[in-house]
């Protein structure tokens, strides 16, 4: 069998399959390449809190590491800001007032989020 005959024979068998494949390809081109819509889960995953805690622990670790690597040196920025509050938070009442401020903001935040949520 000559190569031309062989190719013709194969085409006879694979022709319909190839044409179907071509149709499939043409169909897949019509499908949008992205959803183009913002999707957000309704419920908060339990593990998301772990990520926040992990970040917080990492921050503390780096702060401790700074103290080990550069002993005796003041923390940049923080050491310049904190003296501004000397004489301000010098009573235990401020610990409680921070709670009051947090409570007041939580009330305002509840009002805003409840009123604007869908």
């Amino acid at each position, binding site marked *: 069998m000559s190569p031309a005959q062989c190719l013709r024979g194969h085409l006879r068998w694979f022709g319909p399959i190839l044409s179907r494949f071509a149709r499939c390809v043409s169909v897949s081109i019509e499908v949008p390449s992205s959803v183009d819509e913002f999707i957000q889960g309704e419920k908060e995953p339990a593990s998301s809190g772990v990520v926040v805690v992990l970040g917080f622990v990492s921050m503390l670790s780096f702060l401790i590491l700074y103290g080990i690597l550069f002993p005796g040196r003041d923390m940049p920025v923080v050491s310049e800001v904190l003296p501004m509050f000397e*004489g*301000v*938070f*010098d*009573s*235990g*009442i401020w610990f*409680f*007032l921070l*709670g*009051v401020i947090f*409570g*007041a903001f*939580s*009330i305002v935040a*509840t*009002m805003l989020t*409840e*009123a604007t*949520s869908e």
Partner: protein
Amino acid sequence: MDVIVSTLAIFWLLLALSFILIKRGLWIFNDVAKGLSMFMLEKALGPATDFVSGRSGSASTTWIIHGLVWAFASSTFTFMGLWLSHDATALHSFESWGYHPDSSELLYAGRLTALFGAIGMLVVGASLYALPKLCGTHLASESNATLVSLLWTLSVLLMFVGSQNEQILGITILPVANLLLTLASTALIINVILTVSEATQEIPFPAWLIVYAFIGNIAAVLAVFASGAFDEGVGQWLLFHLVGGTFFFCGLAGVSLYSVSVGSGNPLWSKSLVAFTLFGAIITINPMGSTDPSMVVDLFSLSSNDLDASSRDVIAGSFLMALSAIPIIAFSANMLVTLRGADAFVENPDAPGIAELNLGAWMLIPIAIGSLFVQTDALGGVNELTGISQSIDLMAIWLVMMPLSIGSALNILPRASGRHQLSANRSRWAFWMMSGGAFLGLLITMMSDFTDMALTESMAEQGASINMELRKVGSVMFYGAVIGAIFHCTNTISGQYRGRIMGGPSEASLSSIAIESYTLTGPTSIRKILASGATLDTEVSPSEQSEEEGAPTEL
């Protein structure tokens, strides 16, 4: 001069006159007066009424939410005042802003915002729902009542400012606040009277208590000014206690008695006791409150005078205060027995507000007796118990008036707004934090007061260190009231949006053994059905099957 009896005579006359006018009306001027009043309440305000919802229950909801936010503010001021009583320089850093916080000023701000902001707004809010229900009608003007809440809140805000800074730009702040409060009260009275005039059924006693809470407030002011007693220490003291006995006591009694029946599902135990409560509250002098009438002096911009009572005034005042035990005990007993019912608590005993009503009713009698001793001592000029006067006053506010007003409001709010609080569990936490914090905090502060009094009597040169420690512990304990108020606020506000809809599937059956349906196979008692785990929402369906012994079918 006999100030107390002559002033009270005018007060009683004004109340009797108002009763006759409410019952008889204004003869041929009735329709004109009603039309004019409605015009003043709604149309005369122009586009302002379009800013608020006129939906049924909206006014009550607005007032109650404002009241809860003020409860948070007042608990914070009281906590700061208690703290500064042992650590006077704790907030000295504010002095760089020109603000000099002082313990007595902060406690004064706490009292003003608690009385007029929290308790006052909660009582008015609950009344605006309870009164129309008791009269079988609707509130005359929901939109006006909603608008007036903003005016009232503004006046309370000015009261706080005035308590910290007497004058701003040459204007004395507290009388301005009182003027706004009087304007709001007048609008409320017109609204209430118009509502009562549309009553479709016989007005029950709790509704009269609410009506006299509003009318009595104005009548007390008019009586003291008409008798000329406003310029005397006794007259100022009397005005303070008449307002306490009418607006606060009658108002609290009216809404509490309504709420306790609605909340427990039990009928009000005794009509006669409610009548005693109403009549006694008007006739007698309520002893609860401060011995110092400086609040009246400041709000009405009067000249301050010493409480220098004549012997006749001392006798009349002491007698009438002792007589107030009758309405107080009648009210407390009626509340407690209604809560418990004849046999079972019909509604959900864990519903928000029930625990607060129970606490307020329990604490009413001991604190009233304590107040009676303190007031009699002050009126007689003995002044041996002046040292605990402030603590007793704070106890009356935080352990009687605040629980009763919050309890009533939490019961009524779901019915007015259509939604329950977001979480019954958080509500329970709020109750324990508020009641525990206020009870322990003020009790420990009172222990410190007694130590102070003992040291003063023994003329000790140095104060005891334990005294300051006790005040410190007391103020820290009172912080629980602040946290409880925050819980109540967030729970209620969230509940307005995401709370369970009123009338939806009930969650009353918290027990794991609660059953949804009960098959009735034969005659049985309700007790047996309830004992099997059924609740009020359990469906009882009679079974067609018989338990009788079978026999051959007769052909």
